């Protein structure tokens, strides 16, 4: 057998048992020249590890600290804007519930139809934006998730309300549809704010 190549010597240093390793080891065990080559290889690696550490010529901490502060400020502004959106959505819901109780019967049905149409428009807008296919930060995901959970609760309440006696049902249904529109508006704002922040 001829002497081991550098590739084979390197192969012998790797963990695991690849095919052919046994015959390579057997050769190495009885070949002084290959043992010397293996030793040189090990020494070369050891000398690489022993090279002195290269150090930066200047201190970079102050520049980094500035970057950190700018980043922190940017995050804080985004957090405040998202919290503001969620609060505005809550306030809009409260107004929607109150106003629904003061409308006459036919107007209520008309208002319900309007709210349902608006709700569909907003859902289509969110679908066309396709938030699931976009990269989103954790805070946006959390706020959007909370809004979606609340929409799901409203949907459950709507389902229950539709089973009620028609005489007292409309005011409640209208209030719920308006809640739904308010929540969807907030959800659109959350996605669009995030999109403008990352330049979509």
């Amino acid at each position: 057998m001829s002497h081991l190549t550098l590739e084979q010597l390197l192969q012998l240093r790797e963990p695991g048992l690849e095919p052919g390793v046994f015959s390579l080891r057997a050769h190495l065990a009885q070949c002084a020249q290959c043992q010397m080559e293996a030793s040189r290889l090990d020494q070369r690696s050891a000398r690489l590890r022993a090279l002195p550490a290269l150090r930066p010529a200047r201190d970079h901490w102050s520049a980094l600290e500035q970057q950190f502060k700018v980043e922190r400020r940017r995050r804080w502004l985004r957090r405040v804007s998202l919290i503001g959106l969620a609060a505005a959505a809550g306030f809009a819901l409260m107004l929607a519930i109150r106003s629904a109780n003061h409308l006459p019967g036919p107007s209520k049905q008309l208002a319900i139809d309007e709210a349902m149409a608006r709700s569909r428009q907003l859902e289509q807008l969110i679908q066309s934006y396709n938030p699931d296919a976009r990269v989103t930060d954790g805070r946006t995901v959390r706020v959007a998730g909370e809004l979606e959970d609340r929409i799901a609760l409203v949907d459950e309440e709507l389902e229950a309300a539709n089973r009620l006696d028609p005489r007292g049902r409309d005011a409640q249904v209208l209030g719920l549809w308006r809640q739904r529109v308010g929540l969807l508006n907030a959800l659109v704002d959350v996605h669009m704010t995030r999109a403008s922040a990352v330049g979509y």
Partner: protein
Amino acid sequence: MQGLGIFQSAMTDTYVLADAPALLARARAGDLTAFEQVYRAYEVPVYNLARRICRTVEDAEDVLQETFFEVCRSIHQYRGDGSLWGWVRTIAASKALMRLRRNKYRDADEFEEELHRAPRSDSGLRMDLEAALERLPETSRAVVWLHDVEGYTHEEIAGMMGKTVSFSKSQLARAHTRLRRWLGEEPAA
């Protein structure tokens, strides 16, 4: 180094930060003095790794800053499964390799560079290890450094470089072949 509460283990070549859990807790809470301690502890090994892989001082300095900025942004993602230095080092290695790719240090460039740098007439040349390492093509140098010095496996290097394990192995062999020649360590015919 010791004043910062850090020591380097000669056996494992890893940097261990004293009282790391408390420091991390402060860093996660946004304490910039804690980040500064992390920076001071790992500044030199991160820069050294970057400088060994990147072509220029400027690139290495950029990698240093990008690495610690990423550490600051992602500190909540570090779960403490491995050593903090291991986590920081992987970020630094990825940033340095990204810089290589960005600067288009490709095999084609290396081939051309090799033609200029290592003509056949240098067979009798003997240089020191530092100069020989500096002379290696970027990819080979990155692989030999990550494998032989930083201790990454071929699988890990291939993953970071977006290449195959065979590519990493062949680059390591190429690097050692050149180093052996340039250091005057070729076996007698």
